[in-house]
């Protein structure tokens, strides 16, 4: 089972992102479950959502406490909450930011974590370019597909196409693709650096 926890703020599409990931897994004929942290969601308040993917039916309904992947849609949460609680030792982390991990003040975390599993992607900026709105959900999933690959990019695109229509679908898909390429390049560079070192 692959478990993902999403962190963001109300209005950023955190719940939609988890549902899109579950739909993407469904497109690959796998079992998936997505649900929000149940609260009085308000615009701007911290929000979590969860997604589980497995090859067999998923029975548990507990919140994800030990995620295999963390998608942090709002970097302003990084130092106000312990977002990394329960993260598995080689878990995947993707942060929505144009800054580097070090610039985000995460040097301590990075020191104890595989470098190719702690990445950033400017998801909001990519969404602004392709969608015209700073909604990072779809590009975050594109980025996730590029390095953690719980589902393929095609499945993410299929889920986007099913959920949205017209310009919104096209914009989200383009942003997801761009993020996929961004993260793929990031991983390639890290691999190169590692080989060179």
């Amino acid at each position: 089972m692959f478990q993902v926890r999403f962190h963001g703020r109300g209005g950023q599409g955190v719940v939609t992102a988890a549902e899109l990931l579950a739909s993407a897994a469904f497109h690959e004929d796998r079992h998936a479950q997505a649900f929000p942290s149940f609260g009085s969601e308000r615009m701007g308040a911290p929000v979590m959502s969860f997604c589980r993917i497995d090859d067999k039916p998923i029975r548990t309904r507990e919140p994800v406490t030990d995620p295999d992947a963390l998608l942090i849609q709002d970097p302003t949460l990084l130092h106000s909450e312990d977002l990394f609680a329960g993260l598995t030792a080689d878990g995947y982390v993707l942060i929505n930011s144009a800054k580097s991990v070090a610039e985000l003040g995460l040097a301590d975390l990075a020191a104890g974590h595989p470098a190719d599993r702690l990445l950033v992607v400017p998801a909001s900026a990519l969404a602004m370019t392709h969608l015209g709105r700073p909604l990072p959900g779809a590009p975050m999933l594109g980025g996730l597909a590029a390095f953690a690959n719980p589902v393929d990019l095609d499945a993410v695109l299929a889920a986007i196409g099913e959920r949205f229509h017209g310009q919104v679908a096209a914009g989200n898909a383009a942003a997801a693709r761009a993020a996929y390429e961004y993260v793929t390049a990031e991983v390639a560079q890290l691999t190169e650096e590692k080989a060179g070192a």
Partner: protein
Amino acid sequence: MLKQIEGSRAVAEAVALSRPQVICAYPITPQTHIVEALGALVKKEELNAAFLNVESEFAAMSAVIGASAAGARAYTATASQGLLYMSEAVYNAAGLGLPVVMTVANRAIGAPINIWNDHSDAMSQRDSGWIQLYAETNQEAADLHIQAFRIAEELSNPVMVCMDGFVLTHASERVDIPGQDEVDAYLPPYQPRQVLDPEDPVSIGAMVGPEAFTEVRYLADQRMRQALELIPATAADFACRFGRDSGGLVRRYRTEDAELIVIALGSVLAAIKDTVDDLRQEGLRVGALGITTFRPFPSQAVREALGHSRRLRHLVVLERALAPGSGGIVTGDVHLALAAADGRSLQPAELMISTVVAGLGGRPVSRKSLRAMLLRTALLRTDCGGLPDFSFLDLRSDLVDGELARMRAARRSGPTAENMLRDLDVTAPGAARPAN
């Protein structure tokens, strides 16, 4: 057709497939997505029904009573305070024998105000005369609605389908939504026993005095007893046509030779089954019994299911609601079921029954906590005193002790809920926080 779909949406589609003619609703979390989706289907003309926006839950239930009395298949949904607010009319629907179907997206009752899941709301209406079915999964929630219309209309008795708020209503998962033809073949058009018809006028809702009130009630009781036969038959026909088990009275899980059986209702059975699997793997004889039909209470089915294991020594009833000062609500029914004589009854004297109140107001019932709780019973086979008769799962005694100390220290100790939130330094209750 298999879909990856939110629980509320799956229920809305199942209700729509049941062809309701009148839908009345007033929004309340966590039920709202269901009627929102139904409203959208009506607006898109994919569902031919009258959708009435009403001014309160009392009006919602009153309007479906009127619609049902006029011969329409009628549906509403609510939760929590909304169910309490319509309570008077809830009793009327049952008393009049009108086959309304209502979803209750189970949520706690205030005060303190709490929007999260437990079973306090539906349990408060347990003796209203409605049939109560509890869904374990979203697939079952969808299926139960289709069955509910058939049960309700065949008996002329309303049915409440209870599904855990948020945990089920807001979870997206795989649900098989049947085709319209299949549902039409399973659920015939509504044939009312009584109908308000200008061509053949009757009045419904007479005042009945001591001369016949008892007899009307007697027949209501008989109707509910008939439901104990009808519900399994309806589920069996559903299984036959749709190829999956949904509904029925009770469901056993690994109860063979179990020394310990956990009884529960609703989605918490998932965590219980996971825990049973873990403990079985360690060689402990543990099983679970899910109660799908809570009203009428299936005493005989419970007795038979428990009688299935000759080794049974300990029952744990996991309660998602609390009867303050009395204990567990389901526990009382289980005691009565076991005490009923049928020549082959279990011997309650040798059987320890513990009530564990769990998951109140949305506190997750984790596998870890369930495991620790069950180990207190199963490991101490010679002395089952490890788990008291009555306890709360994951009770934070630090919070309780802090408030008790305040109350001892000063007469004017202030409001308990606010004091505890201050102790926890919580400004936004239930706000998203990573794992504790």
